[in-house]
């Protein structure tokens, strides 16, 4: 679906903005020289092509990615847009499919004439689309948490500045698991690339902490019952690390509960499987007292920052992580902040580079590559981050919460240093 959610203020307001810009230029205090030039040059919208998972397996994420994107665009436009120009979101559904994803990227570049493409979550769609973005020289800002960007697989036009990648997330969990839950870990993961990433990255990280993975149980993606896998869990297991995805997660948790009864090892999981799912859903009682990784805590915490409060209100999410208009509509809070932050990085990059049009795309990428510290702010409500211009990947704090009284209560916040790993690529050496 293509909808043009323009939050521009109309011709009159755009003129008003121009007038303000001219006034500012006259005083010479608020805008640098290029910005005055850019404003005088054009008031046409900056077009951001939003590659959205409106349908397909990513639809639950896509719905909230869209709401977050619209909220961020509104905030940016209310504050004067980008370089004095309104921001226009051009949405296209990619069906969570890599073939359609690549077609959508082509459509952004050659039909809609977007300035950048943005917003993709699922890794296979990113990897299927990125080659076309690179060939079309269209900056492609993904919000995927995949390791594909930092691994060097993609190209100079693809960046991930708004959400951390799975390698850093998993690595940062190992010290907490090892110090607080146990050193003998059994991993249960889906038998495809996402699960294999967890298996490989966590195994290495826990060994570095003096722990060990005592069993790696891969579940085939077509599985709908898990009882037969549980006897494979070694008796000396101290921690179960699970990262199931898809609708079968409810069955998985229920059957795990039936298998262990009241005496269970410690359990640690990734929230990915329960994004958009109420933690109090029937069948999930067994999760009480277990721990989760969250990219951003779903429930408003005691130490909630003013930035999270403002972000939550702007997107329309209540303190329980649900829509303010429908308490049963649970958000994908652990991931969707990436859309908000990525749009703000695009804005900052365009302003730093004096972006005026498609001819400045290389300058925009160079400006983003030059970014380093991204302090916690209204633009970065999840927390402070560090952007690595060489690998095109951002690094930030990770949150570990515990299911307590039907809520996810913050138990630990990692440092950014815990998430770092050696560079695997230097995209800045690639030609535009």
């Amino acid at each position, binding site marked *: *679906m*293509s909808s043009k959610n323009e939050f521009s203020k109309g011709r009159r307001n755009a003129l008003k903005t121009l007038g303000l810009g001219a006034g500012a230029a006259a005083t010479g205090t608020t805008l640098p020289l290029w910005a005055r030039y850019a404003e005088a040059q054009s008031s046409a919208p900056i077009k951001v092509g939003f590659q959205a998972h*409106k*349908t397909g397996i990513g639809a639950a994420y896509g719905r909230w990615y869209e709401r977050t994107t619209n909220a961020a665009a509104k905030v940016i436009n209310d504050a004067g847009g980008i370089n004095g120009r309104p921001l226009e979101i051009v949405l*296209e*559904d990619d069906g969570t*499919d*890599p*073939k359609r994803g*690549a*077609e959508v990227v*082509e*459509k952004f*570049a*050659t*039909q809609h004439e977007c300035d950048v493409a943005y917003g993709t979550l699922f*890794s*296979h769609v990113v*990897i*299927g689309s*990125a*080659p*076309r973005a*690179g*060939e079309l020289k269209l900056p492609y800002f993904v919000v995927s948490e*995949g390791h*594909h960007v930092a691994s060097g*697989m*993609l*190209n100079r036009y693809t960046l991930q500045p708004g959400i951390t990648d799975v390698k850093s997330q998993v690595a940062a969990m190992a010290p907490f698991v090892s110090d607080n839950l146990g050193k003998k870990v059994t991993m249960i993961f889906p*038998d*495809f*690339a*996402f699960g*294999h990433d967890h298996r490989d990255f966590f195994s290495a990280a826990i060994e570095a902490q003096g722990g060990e993975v005592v069993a790696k149980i891969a579940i*085939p*993606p*077509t599985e709908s019952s898990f009882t037969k896998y549980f006897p494979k869990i070694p008796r000396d297991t101290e921690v179960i690390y699970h990262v199931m995805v898809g609708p079968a997660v409810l069955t998985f948790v229920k059957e795990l509960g039936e298998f262990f009864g009241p005496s269970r090892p410690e359990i640690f999981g990734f929230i990915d499987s329960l994004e958009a799912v109420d933690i109090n859903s029937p069948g999930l009682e067994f999760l009480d007292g277990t721990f989760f990784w969250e990219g951003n805590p779903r429930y408003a915490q005691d130490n909630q920052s003013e930035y999270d409060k403002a972000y939550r209100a702007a997107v329309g999410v209540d303190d329980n992580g649900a829509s303010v208009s429908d308490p049963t509509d649970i958000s994908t809070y652990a991931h969707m902040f990436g859309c908000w932050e990525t749009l703000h990085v695009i804005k900052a990059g365009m302003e730093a580079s004096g972006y005026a049009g498609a001819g400045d795309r290389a300058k925009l990428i160079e400006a983003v590559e030059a970014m380093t510290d991204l302090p916690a702010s209204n633009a970065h409500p999840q927390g402070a981050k560090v952007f690595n211009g060489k690998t095109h990947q951002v690094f930030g704090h990770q949150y570990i919460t515990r299911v307590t009284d039907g809520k996810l209560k913050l138990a630990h916040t990692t440092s950014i240093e815990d998430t770092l790993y050696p560079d695997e690529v230097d995209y800045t050496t690639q030609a535009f």
Partner: protein
Amino acid sequence: MTELRKTMALHIGLLLLLLALNWLLPAYHHGNLSRIMVLASYAIGYNILFGYTGLLSLGHAMFFTAGMYGMALTMRHLGWTPAPAILAGLLSGLLLSLVVGFLALRTSGVAFMIVTLMFAQAVFLTVLYFGEYTRGDEGFVIQQAERIFLGIDLSDPNNRYLAALLAFSLCLLFTLWLVRHPFGKTIIAIRENEDRTRMLGYNVFRHKLTAVVISGTISALAGAMYGLLFGYAGATFASVQYSIFPLLWVLLGGAGTILGPFVGTLFMFYLIDLSSEFTTAYMLVAGIVLVALTLFAPHGLMGELRRRLFRWLP
């Protein structure tokens, strides 16, 4: 004008028109047509089995994927260049279709559909199982620098279009030749009445197996070309929906017609592209159109044209 001349004029004319469009189309439609021509080649492969031999496969994605991975894995892990890698893709499709055909042709009708579906599912799960090499569901990129075919950069839009046109032309002209060849006449006879063909002394199994192999190898060529031209190989292309797509394209365009696969692919591509601008239920739109066509034009677009106006259409 004889039927042969009319046939040649139509098909060569279409290919010349497609060649001319390389310089005429705006960038977006130029890119789309590149993609459509490769996918139409896949549909042409499917049509040989479904349209001309009368065997409905629900697992053709396995052949498309065999070509794609045969090409992509040899490039990724063995460092092969595109030319031998495409041959590896073709060979993968040929071998797979030979094995699958040999086993699946012991069944017929609904059982054949189910067996091909199961084989395709096995191929899909195999791609996931060997994720260490295939990167499973995520897939992997075939880098721009690797996609140089005999000195020609296939990531360049013009080169990509011309390569897609070349593959499509080869498939189209081969099919045109095939259906006029005695082998083509025989598989059509099998479609019309298998028992009578057998009674006339033809080796029906051998002809059907050959049709499966030709169909699978053309599908593999399309898969290898798709991966190479668009720089990506992934397990999604092995999923069941990519077995259903060529069936829909051929049904829409007209099963058992030479141009049907191209017309169906073109129609379906733009139907989804345009309807997705208005609704997220674009597959519902495609479904309704398909039902309507089945009701009012059961032979597909080209099939109806042949039935009503141009009986000489092959």
